[in-house]
């Protein structure tokens, strides 16, 4: 079970680990904005490589990351694209605006070059997003995350929620597994041997003790926090937020540049002078592109129009 958690609770030794929480959170926000902003594979691949380099520089334990990536790849990418192929084979045309037929099956079954390009672009976008989340999760401890969020401008009570939730996850996961195992020993069937209805009803038997043990801790924790004067002042300082080093300054400047570039990109290429279709494609001639309103592609919209 512990293999499945990538999150660190103690700061690691490398340069990225030693950055302050604010730098990490800010870099992560800038990266996320940049990845969300664009569908252009010429920008997405460098962004992915930057995050990959960050991940490698931290010398992580690769096993859980590879397992997660494999699971995500099979469920989201492989199964998702098969489903996409069956449900809307015209998605390539909708997003790119031209059609080059590769294979024509019967009726709605056909494969276009653009469909494959669309799958590739979305895969790169998702993988870049995955890599940025991994890099952030590997670098950040819960307290640093909370202090960084606070410096970004979130009220500190929300930040406490984040760090406290992070901190209690292993405890609650242990409770959950213990309760499930002991319930299974008493003969509560949760596997596929029981019918779905039975499984739903049996889940109540696990959830009720889990909810009571989990929320039973609230009183103790809240009293301990109150006794130490939590919430007395409007502001608070953080243990995890240490002095900024030379690298912090450099990374912050880079993150500001990245964020500014992303905002400039959105304004310049998505609002003022957009590419006629949503996704850039090397063989699509801008003059031939038919732009499609995404809302019109939804299957039930044609019920509203004649």
């Amino acid at each position, binding site marked *: 079970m512990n293999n499945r958690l*990538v999150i660190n609770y103690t700061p690691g030794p490398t340069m990225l680990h030693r950055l302050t929480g604010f730098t990490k959170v800010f870099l992560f926000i800038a990266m996320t904005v940049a990845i969300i902003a664009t569908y252009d594979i010429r920008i997405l691949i460098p962004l992915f490589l930057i995050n990959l380099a960050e991940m490698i520089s931290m010398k992580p334990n690769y096993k859980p990351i590879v397992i997660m990536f494999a699971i995500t790849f099979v469920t989201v990418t492989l199964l998702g694209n098969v489903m996409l192929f069956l449900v809307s084979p015209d998605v390539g045309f909708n997003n790119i605006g031209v059609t080059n037929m590769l294979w024509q099956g019967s009726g709605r079954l056909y494969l276009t070059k653009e469909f494959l390009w669309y799958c590739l672009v979305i895969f790169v976008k998702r993988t870049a997003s995955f890599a940025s989340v991994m890099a952030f999760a590997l670098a950040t401890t819960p307290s640093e995350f909370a202090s960084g969020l606070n410096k970004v401008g979130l009220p500190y009570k929300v930040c406490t929620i984040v760090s406290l939730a992070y901190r209690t996850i292993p405890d609650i996961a242990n409770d959950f597994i213990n309760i499930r195992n002991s319930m299974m020993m008493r003969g509560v069937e949760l596997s596929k041997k029981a019918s779905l209805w039975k499984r739903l009803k049996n889940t109540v038997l696990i959830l*009720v003790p889990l909810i009571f043990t989990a929320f039973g801790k609230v009183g103790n924790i809240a009293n301990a926090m109150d006794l130490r004067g939590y919430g007395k002042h409007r502001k608070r300082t953080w243990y995890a937020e240490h002095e900024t080093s030379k690298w912090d300054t450099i990374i912050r400047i880079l993150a500001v540049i990245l964020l500014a570039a992303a905002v400039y990109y959105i304004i310049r290429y998505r609002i003022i002078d957009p590419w006629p279709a949503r996704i850039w494609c090397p063989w699509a001639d801008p003059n031939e592109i038919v732009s499609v309103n995404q809302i019109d592609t939804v299957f039930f919209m044609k019920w509203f129009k004649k």
Partner: protein
Amino acid sequence: MANKSFGQKLLGVWNTRTIVTVAIGAALFGVLMNYGGIPVFTNTSLTTAMIVPVVVGAMYGPLPAFVAAGVGNVIADLIGGWGLWFDWSVGNAVAALFVGLLPIYGAYITDGVFEVKHAVIYAICCVIGNAVAFGVVTPILTAVFYGSDLNVTFLQAIAASLGNIAVEVVIGIPILFILAKRYKSRSNLEEDE
């Protein structure tokens, strides 16, 4: 709960106890999202995580439920490692806002009040909440942020809402009755200020 103003019922009272409850709720949400699936077919499972905002909402109102589900989903994504999906996080949080409305229509679980009529209103809220969250909010955000195909998103959203509604109704209502009964047996005690 009964003697609080409407605003307090809606927004919750943000003292230390509420903060800790929301934090534990978020952690529980993350754990259930990662480990607490009920297998239905191969590769598909009903997530039981949506029970958490029901319980948090019953105790502290809809806004704490909203925060618990939102933070919980972000954390679940971070530890689960499948990438952050803000469209689904926000969708889950909006659904949580609706299922956490319990104190608004008079189901004061902490006072031991939960009757059949509350259960009916609760079930209706679950349906409306999931329809708004996964029928409107998530598809819009998906289209804007990630460029997924809207048809596939809607199919996923329908599957997710049906699963959530089933979990919230079939598991949620018995849990709410059990909670209410449990609080009722303690309700003759009074806290000394």
